[in-house]
């Protein structure tokens, strides 16, 4: 039910909508909950709304942590 996926903002449309690219699938969603999002950012999409931002640097840091620990 809380299913949400990270998607890249491909376009901003009007005041609070955008088109996201989800692994090649483009979808128009509401950006009203993430006014700070810009084209190229990754947002977390849930039931037609971006509910939060995805921090690319933090994602890389977490992946590095997995790899370091296993060394």
């Amino acid at each position, binding site marked *: *039910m*809380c*299913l*949400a*996926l*990270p998607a*890249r903002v491909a376009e901003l449309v009007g005041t609070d909508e955008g088109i996201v690219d*989800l*692994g090649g699938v483009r979808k128009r969603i*509401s950006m*009203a*909950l*993430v*006014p700070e999002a810009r084209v190229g950012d*990754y947002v*977390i999409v*849930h*039931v*037609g*709304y971006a*509910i*939060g*931002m*995805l*921090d*690319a640097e*933090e*994602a890389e*840091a*977490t*992946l590095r*942590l*997995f*790899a370091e*620990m*296993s060394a």
Partner: protein
Amino acid sequence: MKYVDEFRDGELARRIGANIAREADPSRDYRFMEFCGGHTHAIARYGVVDLLPDNLRMIHGPGCPVCVLPIGRVDMAIRLAFERGVMLCTYGDVMRVPASDGLSLMRAKARGADIRMVYSPLDALQLARAHPGREVVFFAIGFETTTPPTALAIRQAQSEGLRNFSVLCSHVLTPPAITHILRSPEVHDHRTVPIDGFVGPAHVSIVIGSRPYEGFATTYRKPVVIAGFEPLDVMQAILMLVRQVNEGRAEVENEFTRAVTREGNACAQAAMADVFDVRNSFEWRGLGQVPASALKIRGDYAAFDAETHFDLDYRQVADHKQCECGAILRGVKKPTECKLFGNVCTPETPMGSCMVSSEGACAAHYSYGRFRDIPVVSS
């Protein structure tokens, strides 16, 4: 998909599993509750349990909104569709939840009720615009992840003057449910369900932040590690919990830093606070009445509140006598300890709500884990 596939790497998962096994103290047991159905699903789907040591057990929590939705709420939606002739819209997960009289929304639809499955509250708004002569009701369920979109849909309806749109609000709150579990007799008094820590919600925490869990660490001395819904996230969170337990720490840690901050999404919180108030009490399937655990629509938006608009009353309905969903949602029983599991109750014909959503403990175990219970015999 970027930011998904990297977090499903099987080789890395095995290595994290080896680290958990190395750091877990063999002289004690570890019991962690994953609150969210999203974690329950990931643990079952990716076989995470197989990568954990025998003295570490995951207990499924009640964080599956479909599973905790009481029969009486679904009955309200069905009554609206049959008796008031509304066009009732809801998420796909809700369609098969068993209701009274052998009905579900799906079966009510088959009997002629106008029930529509939607992906988003925006779709329900669009139906209301397209059918100005009909009453369109959005049956809204879900935790804090799903609540801000409902809030924005209600505000949108108000700004458009969309008078034929209303919401049957069944949104519930995560922190009061965790408090309820920690205070339950099984956990707090009898200690029949010992919990050493929590894997904290992923997407709920994007909205509310990590701060609301800090009380569980300080007051109840339970470690909480917020984790993403991918298998590597869950494994890493389990390792972080093992370390906290080993070091005698009880803190809120955040594994899901790529999406969760301490403060959460202020914009989403403001929308929720504008549209909703906290109910004094709300019935949860399995947990019973939980104080201050759900939301209702504020007076300013009363015109969009289906409960007010249609003067609805809630009638409590008991679960099927042999259904163990209640005990399973509290972590007291495992799905296989229910007599109905896998025979009369399957994902195709669910008797209890835990078998409905793929995030439910019973459906997750049935779909991905039931053959683990059968010993492998070679001839």
